């Protein structure tokens, strides 16, 4: 599903964000990406949805070579990838329903299809009753659930969550992680970059630990800190 081969990323300001990273993530996996700030977690996720291009090395996502990919093809790659962020990135002048529908509208989904899918995904995240509310009327956890709904309404093969619980209290964080787990159970590959030690430790999923741009540990059923 996602393959990185000897990927190095140097930003124009000469910061080396990734250094010779190779890894493989298969279909249906749930992966935690951990490590201190500046370790390269965000850069790694950006490379996957081709927000950034590698300086060296090869990346393939859903069978497509991202290095050789023409810019015109990028939107079609992204339709396979859902992304959520710490800051939700919702449109404040649109309702919950409209925010989710927006993701389908801009990829020209037929209207009837939009209605059906939005209703189903709001059901999934448990916000059907808030469909007409505006994002700023919701709690942080609810806003993140809207963002999640928007990310998966297109049924992407991959879901990337870049510190999705960074702004949430522990209980709400758990709700989001449970939701991610549920989405994963339906077949979506989930990659979650996080600092939430207790979540990683209790989930016991694959953990990829990064430090200064390198993968320092890749462990099945792993924990946040190196046990050795």
């Amino acid at each position: 599903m996602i393959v990185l081969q000897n990927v190095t990323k140097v930003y124009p300001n000469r910061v080396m964000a990734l250094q010779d990273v190779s890894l493989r993530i298969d279909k249906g996996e749930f992966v935690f990406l951990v490590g201190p700030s500046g370790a390269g977690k965000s850069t790694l996720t950006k490379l996957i949805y081709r927000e950034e291009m590698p300086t060296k090395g090869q990346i393939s996502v859903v069978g497509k070579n991202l290095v050789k990919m023409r810019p015109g093809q990028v939107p079609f790659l992204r339709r396979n990838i859902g992304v959520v962020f710490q800051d939700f990135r919702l449109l404040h002048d649109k309702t919950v329903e409209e925010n989710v529908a927006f993701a389908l509208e801009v990829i020209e989904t037929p209207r009837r299809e939009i209605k059906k899918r939005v209703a189903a995904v709001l059901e999934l995240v448990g916000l059907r009753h808030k469909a007409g509310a505006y994002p700023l009327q919701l709690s942080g956890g609810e806003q993140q659930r809207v963002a999640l709904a928007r990310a998966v309404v297109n049924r992407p093969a991959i879901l990337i969550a870049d510190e999705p619980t960074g702004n949430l209290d522990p209980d709400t964080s758990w709700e989001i992680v449970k939701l991610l787990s549920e989405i994963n159970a339906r077949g979506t590959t989930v990659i979650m970059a996080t600092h939430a030690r207790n979540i990683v430790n209790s989930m016991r999923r694959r953990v990829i630990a990064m430090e200064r741009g390198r993968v320092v540990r890749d462990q099945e059923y792993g924990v946040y800190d190196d046990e050795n």
Partner: protein
Amino acid sequence: MRIRTLQYVLAEAGRGVRRNRNLSLVSVTTVAVCLILLALVVLLALNFDAKAKELESQVTIKVYLKDNTPPEVVKSLNDTIAKLDGVKDVTFINKDQALQELKSWLQNDPVLEGVAELNVLRESFRIHVQRPEQVEPVATAVQGLQGVDEVDYRRGDVQKLFAFTRALRIFSYALVGLLALGTVFLVSNTIRIAIFARRREIGIMKLVGATDWFIRWPFIVEGTLIGLLGALLSLIAVWGGYKWLADYTARALPFFALIPPLAILPRVSLLLTAVGVLIGILGSALSLRRFLRI
């Protein structure tokens, strides 16, 4: 493009214009002012051209004959000239007629006293041609004929008028071009602000896989809309203004009658609309390139 996408694009473009109402208004007005100036230049040039053509077709070729040309030569000359390509009519003026003309021209100025008996004026032909461009070949042909002393068709005057209109046109087009450039930048600024206002949406659109053209279209349409509205505004002013001026000159200065509005305004309107739309599209394209890195 799907119908629904078209609806979306139009709705977003309209929303964009309304969201930056003041700036859009300024852009529309500037486009209109630019187009009105363009219309002024074009209308002036076309009228000058028409006037110059008219004058040139009225040009009389005067053919002066050598003194004491025998009447039979005059007769054969007359026939030869009449048969030349493009000659509409040819009139013979004898010495007496020439003197009468001079007298009426000078209104019996005493200067003429005594001259009348001498009458040094030459006999001549007056030739009119069918089309302006035939003046020169006819004049050249006549020049070489037997008994012809001098051919005069005041070539310089008409040429000067043409040169003047040409210079005027080049100068005013350069001026309008500069103004159009400024207008393009103003429109582009309006679009830039529209892009800025929607940057969150654009970020999300990119993230969920909207194509670049899907993101660009509303801004292109917004620019086009500004251009079209500006063109509309200018058309109102130009039609109204030209009609009034044409009526006024027809009454007050029949000598300088303008080209009738309906004979000229439809074409000019087409030009203004096209240029307005072009300015709008160029303006948005400029902003899209610089501020929408997709």
